[in-house]
């Protein structure tokens, strides 16, 4: 009987593992498809039936970062021969770069959007984590009248739908000239991430034994010194995980960026899809922009893998 059971059990196990592999492959197809599209020649990006095997090329990335125009007539063979290989690929398409008077290639909008995304995500992450760590320590170590209510209040600000907050914020920003500014988005993203940062950091700080600080206090440290010299170093992993989560949230954010910016401070998420409507869609360049944008998130996901559960439950579930 037991032997029969275990044979059945093993067969079931094998089926489950096979199913897991199938599910994983199906799950990764969309990501695989957008990634390979970025390396396809434009003519193969939208074929019927879809092209699976092709010779990868990086022309789409050159197109992503530059402004180009259609060329009238052929390129001068002398110029073609002198041009670097990536410029030759553009000539091959019958296009040329737009250059300024000094011969510098004009960059496309993507580069500045990417930089905006970086500046805004890094600044707001720094602010949210710094304030969040202090506040989490305050809630973790000291008694506060109505503590649960304050923590609920803090978390509830995170749950507000962006559109609901954006309507009055837009009017206020317009009054003080913060529409389409980096500072405006940094403030919004800091507010959005702050509640998350407080909850997650509180979970991490709760786990540091109080005895460490008490020993330090007995040794003559002040509370402040104990916090900066004992607690913060102990919480380093937690701070790093919180920072990465905040960065990803700010990096990915779309709704606020759509409503509060249009050009100067625009981030990548509203910019990349806006390329879809303009003229003839070049999916290889859009895919290239998407892949570059998703790459940091993919790397961070692997770095964070041990903390993902904690992160998505605001620090409530640790395991």
């Amino acid at each position: 009987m037991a032997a029969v059971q275990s044979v059945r059990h093993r067969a079931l196990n094998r089926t489950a593992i096979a199913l897991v592999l199938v599910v994983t492959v199906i799950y990764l197809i969309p990501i695989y498809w957008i990634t390979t599209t970025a390396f396809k020649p434009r003519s193969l990006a939208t074929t019927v039936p879809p092209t699976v095997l092709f010779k990868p090329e990086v022309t789409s990335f050159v197109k992503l970062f530059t402004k180009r125009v259609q060329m009238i007539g052929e390129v001068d063979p002398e110029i073609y021969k002198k041009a670097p290989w990536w410029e030759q690929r553009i000539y091959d398409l019958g296009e040329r770069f737009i250059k300024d008077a000094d011969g510098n290639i004009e960059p496309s909008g993507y580069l500045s959007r990417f930089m905006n995304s970086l500046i805004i995500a890094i600044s707001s992450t720094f602010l949210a984590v710094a304030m969040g760590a202090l506040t989490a320590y305050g809630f973790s170590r000291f008694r506060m009248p109505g503590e649960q209510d304050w923590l609920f209040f803090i978390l509830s600000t995170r749950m507000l739908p962006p559109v609901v907050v954006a309507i009055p914020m837009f009017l206020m920003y317009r009054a003080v000239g913060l529409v389409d500014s980096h500072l405006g988005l940094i403030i919004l993203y800091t507010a959005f991430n702050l509640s998350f940062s407080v909850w997650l950091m509180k979970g991490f700080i709760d786990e540091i034994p109080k005895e460490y600080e008490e020993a330090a206090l007995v040794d003559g440290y002040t509370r402040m010194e104990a916090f900066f010299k004992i607690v913060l170093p102990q919480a380093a992993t937690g701070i790093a995980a919180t920072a990465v989560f905040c960065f990803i949230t700010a990096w990915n954010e779309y709704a606020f960026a759509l409503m509060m910016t249009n050009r100067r401070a625009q981030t990548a998420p509203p910019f990349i899809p806006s390329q879809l409507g303009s003229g003839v869609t070049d999916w290889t360049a859009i895919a290239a922009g998407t892949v570059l944008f998703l790459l940091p998130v993919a790397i961070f996901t692997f770095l964070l893998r041990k903390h993902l559960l904690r992160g998505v439950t605001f620090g409530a579930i640790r395991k």
Partner: protein
Amino acid sequence: MLSTLDPGSPAARRGLSDITIRNLFIIPTIAFLIVFNIFPLIYSLGYSFTDFRASSNAPASFVGLQNYRDLLNDEHVWNNFSVTAKYVLISVGGQVLVGFGVALLLNRKIPFKGFITTLLLLPMMMSMAIVGLFWQLLYSPSWGIIDYVLGLEDFAWLSNPDVALYAVAITDIWMWSPFVMLLCLAGLSAIPQHLYEAAAIDRASRWYTFTRITLPLVSPLLMIALIFRTMEAFKTFDLAFIMSNLDSTELIAIKLYRLAFQQWQTGPSCALAYMVLIMVLAITNIYVKYLNQAKER
């Protein structure tokens, strides 16, 4: 805690007092959130009783509850709410089924389990807007791979009013099932093995074991996933906004955006925002209750 040190001891008197430090650490955050979240909401509560239009210079005049009355009598708004309800049902239902199912499959010894789990979690970490963008490539009627794989010729997913909402929901399910899976996996792996052994000795059926052991023990975490996803699906803006612009995919958040930022009907949009806000706060309340329960276990 404060009580651990005798207030009269030399250690407690050095430096700033604990109360000062506590206030110094907590008050800036609370003040920041009040200024940038609560104050704007008070501001918009005021506007919800006026006919203000942010696009004109005309001063706002007080109209009382007119905006709320108009919205509640507006068929279109009711339609937006019912589209949203349908979307929440389909996408959260799908996420729970797929997420829980995959968690059950994964809950055993599997080679490279950690790596596979992380791969499966990738979609949920991505930007909704960007996911919505590249799923358009997959859904394309003429050369998308979904039509090709399913053998449908030129089937339009996102411009067909009957299926567009399902198409968006499928993308949402792809993106967020891993979230449900992650929580269920945590719940499943915490179930003590001896319960299953005891059930096996009693010759309990698989179904009995599943409904009497597995389900009740996973349910606290499953509920957290369910409530959180319900709230997020209710608020969905990015995904549906990027993927489709039909009436049949106009979720309440999209309606709110159009009312506020395309038609510039600031007064009515503030009133609608308040209706949405109250619903979100109600769900948040339930969510936090479950979170705190899970924490205590």
